[in-house]
């Protein structure tokens, strides 16, 4: 049994069986992370480059830790301070790194499709750690692991994704994953931040009322307002956004059930999520971060073990 794909470019390309395999493997890695020696020798003959063309805290640390827990050798590359500023192309940079005998590439890029482009031109296995506004597959997988830990399964569960859907690769990967696994998805947020045709294209519900979405759902996945990707005015002010679409304690108190709150980080406290919600017992935010390492270990382990992955 192995993954159907040589790379992890997006959830879009995965089969439900692949997702089950990754989540089952991740649960075993979670147990490894509880041990006195939190390290296994599985990838000791593998070298991985972390290629980050865009800023990251959680994802980069999480990938690096996952690689180290698997005993892989790692190289970190960030675009600032490299020859990228001298005008070297993406493909040249990667080919130069690969000629130093690197087996796998973990990459984040601000351009949608950058890892897909690389996958056509280089032999190494590629893990997408976020590309533009397209996908962030490992985030969706760790979200799924966090939800199944609390609710047992995704089948038939109601998940609301709230906020800046338009600029969110986390939303895209979550929509693909949740619909493949039989969960119901509702998107909520201001009309300017939800793409028009998403309802018909992906089989999800759309509402412009956050309150309605919260009343409906079992889990609310709250997204960050991505100001760095918004080059036009899509809502009037952050304060107004908070009042109309932010998750506040007052709002949660009006619904009669305890829903789970998730956020991929980094949080804009007091904008999409208030502090007393983010730090409360119903928040899964730190579980998500913890599960991130196990999920990434599972992905790297499964990709490295494919017959055609290393020559």
């Amino acid at each position, binding site marked *: 049994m192995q993954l159907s794909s040589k790379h992890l470019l997006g959830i879009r390309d995965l089969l439900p069986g692949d997702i089950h395999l990754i989540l089952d493997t991740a649960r*075993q*890695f979670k147990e490894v992370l509880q041990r006195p020696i939190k390290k296994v020798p*599985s990838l000791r003959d593998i070298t991985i480059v972390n290629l980050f063309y865009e800023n990251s805290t959680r994802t980069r640390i999480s990938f690096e830790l996952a690689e180290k827990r*698997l005993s892989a050798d790692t190289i970190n590359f960030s675009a600032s301070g490299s020859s990228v500023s001298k005008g070297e192309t993406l493909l040249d940079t990667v080919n130069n790194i690969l000629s130093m005998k690197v087996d796998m590439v973990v990459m984040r890029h601000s351009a949608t499709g950058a890892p897909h482009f690389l996958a056509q031109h280089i032999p190494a296995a590629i893990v997408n750690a976020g590309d533009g506004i397209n996908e962030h597959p490992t985030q969706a997988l760790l979200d799924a692991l966090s939800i199944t830990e609390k609710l047992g399964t995704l089948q038939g569960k109601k998940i609301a994704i709230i906020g800046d859907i338009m600029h969110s690769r986390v939303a895209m990967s979550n929509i693909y994953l949740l619909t493949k696994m039989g969960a119901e998805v509702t998107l909520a947020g201001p009309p300017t931040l939800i793409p028009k045709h998403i309802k018909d294209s992906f089989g999800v519900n759309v509402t412009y009322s956050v309150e309605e979405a919260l009343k409906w759902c079992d889990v609310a996945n709250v997204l960050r307002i991505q100001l760095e990707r918004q080059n036009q005015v899509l809502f009037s002010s952050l304060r107004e956004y908070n009042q109309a679409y932010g998750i506040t304690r007052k709002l949660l108190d009006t619904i009669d059930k305890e829903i789970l709150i998730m956020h991929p980080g980094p949080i804009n406290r007091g904008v999409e999520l208030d502090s007393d919600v983010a730090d409360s017992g119903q928040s899964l935010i730190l579980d998500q971060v913890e599960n991130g390492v196990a999920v990434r270990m599972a992905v790297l382990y499964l990709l490295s*073990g494919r017959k055609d992955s290393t020559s």
Partner: protein
Amino acid sequence: MKGVNTIMEEDQLKLTLKRLAHELIENHFPFDNTCIIGIQPRGIAISDFITQYIQEIHPEVKINYGKLDITFYRDDFRGQIHIPNITDLPFSIEGKKVILIDDVLYTGRTIRAAMDALLDNGRAQKVELCILVDRKFSRELPIQPDYVGKSIDSIVTQKVKVIWGDEKRVILYDSM
């Protein structure tokens, strides 16, 4: 499956496992500083049986019994992904005597991986190996069992399988 030979029938299989249990009792009673660990996935049926049997004849002792998965420690996973099983060690092995139990000892590579996996959980005082079927003269690593159910001669193209369902027996068959 071709050329199937039954090397142990159910009665003999159970008798052998009980004998192994008695050997463990002889060396380790009352099991206060000893733990029994079955190797996932196929050692578990054997270790379950042995542990339950010891518990039946000595209900007063408390046996530390765990399960160990070695998937992440294998040296042959490149080329074939093994799906991990559950590791369940609800105690510390620090300073304890550990009895590893598996069904078949062949090249010794599984046991090498099991020792690495085990020692990542702490420093055991001593590690012993209990095996149902020992395939003689086929070792690729210097590993020998302390307790053996049955030693057999076999060739590379043959495989040994412990069938542990409603019907229980050990078979030797041609894999080619």
